[in-house]
Every structure is written in C-alpha cells, then in structure tokens.
C-alpha cells in the first residue's frame, strides 16, 4: 500500500496560491478556513522561497495523540483523517500540530471553536465514500475516485507533489540532481522523523 505524502518543491513554487483556491473550491471550505496556505519566507530578501503547506499526514500524528476524544484515524494509505462527529473543538490539535493544519470555524461563546476542519488529502472522512454526508463535512473524496489531491494535480509549476512518498521523493531527488540545487522537502523531518531530509 502506498504511503501518501505531500512534497513542496520550494524552488518551483511561484506563490500563485492556486492550490489554496482550488482546495477551497473543491471542498467548499467555509469562509475564514484555509486547509492549505502558501507561506513566503525571507520575503523580499535573497533566498526567498514560497512553500505551500497543509496537513502533512504525519507518522505518529501529534494531533491524534493529544485528541481527548480520539477522533483521528490513519487510513491504509497513511492519510490522517478525523471524525467531526467525535471532535469537540477543544483546540489541542492546533497546539500540537507542527504545521498549523487544524482550522476551527469560530462559533458560539467566547473564542469557542466549532468542529475542527483540516486537509483530508482529498480523501473525505469516516463516512461512506462520496456520500452527501461525507461531502457536507469533509468535502469531496478524490482519492476514492482514483485521483490525487486537487492542489497538487493543478499546480502550474508542479512544485507541489502528492502521491506515494517514495515516488515523489524520487521525483524530487531527480530534479535536485538535474538542476543542482534544492532547499529540501519541507516539513518531512518533523512529519515523518525517519525519512529525515536536509
């Protein structure tokens, strides 16, 4: 079985934010919630890089470990999903997540959070595949249709890669070898530990 991962080639990302837009459109993500975002570091300085970041679907996911209601589960493809039926919106996963992936619709009293929303790797939730119930809570389930996440599929510079970890790592390695530089697979060290990168 494949181990699905994201890899953003920061030397190719042009900060067009199309991945962000495509994600929001595909899943009809509510206003104020971003399952994916593009962060520019060293903005305006030498060495400026943009990185598209979402849930990295970590090995031994911190969100799952701190969740009081154990609402997370990892699929056979290594995708970390969660159940909005079990989520109580406590916010712990946001503090544990190294990538700022969990998002909360703000509702109710004080700063109280609604049920957490995050990148599903376009793989829906615990409901049956491509049912209206699943779509309403988690958006579309492209993986069940044999498609990869929309953000990577439509990336104009092919900076954002999605697919089996070994395969996209190989693609990236070939790129780095051919062009002679690369700033690393962002977040892989933190997300997957053993698959550490520079």
């Amino acid at each position, binding site marked *: 079985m494949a181990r699905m991962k994201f890899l953003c080639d*920061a030397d190719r990302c042009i900060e067009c*934010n199309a991945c962000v837009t495509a994600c929001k459109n595909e899943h009809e993500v509510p206003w*104020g919630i*971003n399952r994916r*975002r*593009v*962060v*520019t*570091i*060293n*903005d305006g*300085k*030498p*060495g*400026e*890089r943009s*990185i598209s*970041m979402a849930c990295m679907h970590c090995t031994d996911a*911190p969100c799952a*470990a*701190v*969740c*009081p*209601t*154990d*609402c997370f589960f990892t699929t056979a493809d290594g995708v970390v999903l969660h159940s909005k*039926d*079990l*989520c*109580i919106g*406590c*916010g*712990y996963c*946001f*503090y*544990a997540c*190294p*990538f*700022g992936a969990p998002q909360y619709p703000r509702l109710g009293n*004080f*700063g*109280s*959070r609604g049920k957490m929303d995050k990148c599903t790797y376009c793989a829906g939730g615990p409901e049956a595949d491509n049912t209206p119930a699943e779509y309403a809570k988690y958006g579309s389930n492209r993986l069940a249709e044999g498609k990869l996440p929309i953000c990577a599929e439509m990336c104009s510079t092919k900076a954002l890669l999605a697919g089996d970890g070994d395969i996209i*790592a190989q693609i*990236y*390695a070939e790129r*780095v*070898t051919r062009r*002679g*530089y*690369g*700033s*690393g*697979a*962002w*977040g892989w060290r*933190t997300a997957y530990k053993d698959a*550490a*990168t*520079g």
Partner: protein
Amino acid sequence: MTHFLTRLRGLIAAAALGLGLAAASLPATSPATAQAPAAPTPAAPAQASEQMLFNYLQGNVQGRVTIPDQRAALLIQPQGREFQHFHRTTLKWLGGIAIGGMLVVLVVFYMIRGKVRIEAGLSGRTIERFNGLERFAHWLTASSFIVLCITGLNISFGRELLMPLMGPEAFATWSQWGKIAHNFLSFPFTLGVLLMLVIWIKDNIPNGEDVKWFAAGGGLIGHGHPPPTRRFSGGQKVIFWAVVLGGGAIAVTGFIMMFPFQFVTTMEGMQLATQLHGIISIVLIAIILAHIYLGSVGMEGAFAAMGSGHVDLNWAKEHHGLWVEEMMSAGRGAAAPEGARKAGAD
C-alpha cells in the same frame, strides 16, 4: 541574514538539501552560483533550507502569508511534537502519581490514624464559625470546582479511562457538554476564589504560630495536642493559599485558553498556558482531595463548620483554642441584645 548565511555555509553544505540520496549524487561544483548571488562561495545554494532556518530561528519557521489569518504565517513549529509528548506521557504520569498517590495516602492514613475524634466529646453547645457569606463563597467555589475537576480530568484522562466503557459516540457527546460546562463554570469558580480571598485573607497571614504548629506535627500527627491556633491553623492557611494562588493561576491560564490568541498571541504562549493549566490543576486537585477528606470522614465535627456554620464548642476549643478565647472575650465585652433577660429571671 547575509552574515548568518555566510556563517552557516559549512553546516548547510554538510546537511544539504533534498532526500539524502540527492545530496549524495550532487556534484561538488554544482551550478549553484547563479542561484546565490549574495554568496561568496557556491558550496551552499539553498538559502532557505529547512534545517538552516530551524537552526537560525531555533525552531519556528515564520514567513508571510496573503490570507487574513496571520497565525498561518507560522510555517513549521516542531515543538508541537513536545506538546504531543507532554500530553501523551508527562501529564498522564503526573496526574496518576499526584491524584492516585494522594488517594492511596488518604486511605492508608485513615486506616492508621482513623477519624480524628473530639476528645472531650460533644458539648452540645455550638459557636458560629462561618457566616452565610463565608459559606456561600466556599460552596460556590467548591461546587464549581468539582464539576470543573470532573470535566477537566475527562479531557486529560477520559480517553483512556472512560471512552472504552462508554463508546466513542457517547463519550464525545458527554465531552462536548463537559467542555461547555467547563467553560461556563470558570466564572463562578473565579468569583468564589476572589470572594474567599477578600473574606479570609486577614485570618490567613502566616506568622510564627504556624511554624510552631507545624513543628508540633499539626493537628494530624500531633494527635490532638498541637499548639492552640487562632481562626485558621497552619494547615488551613496552606489550603487557603493553595486555593487562592493555584486557583488564580488556573483561572488566568484557563481564560487564556478560552480566548485563544487574544491575551497571549504566540504559539509558545498558548502551549505553555495549556500545559501550566494541566499541571497546576492536578496539583490543586490532589491538595483539595486531602481537604475534602479532613472536612468529611477524616475529622469529627469538622463538616459542621461549612455545613450549618456552627461548630461544637469542644471541637472549637481543641482545634482553635485561641480563636475561641477571642470570640468569648469579644462576647463578654458586648452589650446584651435588646430585650435579653438574665438566665433564670423568669
């Protein structure tokens, strides 16, 4: 930044790039010069490599985002893994040892020492120890604290202890209500702590008598012969300050958590508030368990102080001798209430 880049150049060259295999296959004289115009040597082309930024920023990689949520500019915060470890391991051990340990200590203590009796027996006469406002403040704090404890412990330990019994759905529903109760009861709890602070602080200033009281083993080990105390004994003062300071800290960290990123704006600050809230709460729960024990099964006549507000005179003399004397002398100097007649005047 440029200075820093130069300084770390060797490091980066070693740690380099991509996926290990890529680094190995890279030619030493890569055509990287064009990519790094600011660099005097072309050895390290990747100014923005993750590891380099981690070293520079000591953890967090912060950037710029074009979306309104500026928290999203924090690209990677590896200390989330430490938060994970704290919640999965540290807090569980701490809670188990503090709360479980205290329960064991109390049971063992009860078996050895038994109930602390009123040695002179009940006198049948009572003296007012706590008035209505004092008891209101106590029970306001106590009742909200008990619900806060149960719902708070549920967040930390319910997944292991309760969920297997209730099933995930029922547990999630119960936890959802628990969270709402936890949020709302924070207000009466805070009010109760503040009330108690104002009402009782004058009787709880530590002094030399407390040192003697502790030196004599207090009311428990000293077996009923500690030095007589004023209104509150040294042990009670400890409880008072634990509740005021601990409860205050729990309230402050709790409100920080309830209004995320409002009072505290950094990720580290929010993580610290969450962790402190857990640690202090567990310690306070352990202390309050001992308090509940002494106020109920542990000591004869003690519950009446917070129950009816009137304690037996012999209990008061044995536990708060100086206080009884103060009250009596104040009573002797007072004028008789209007309409009062001497005993036996009829």
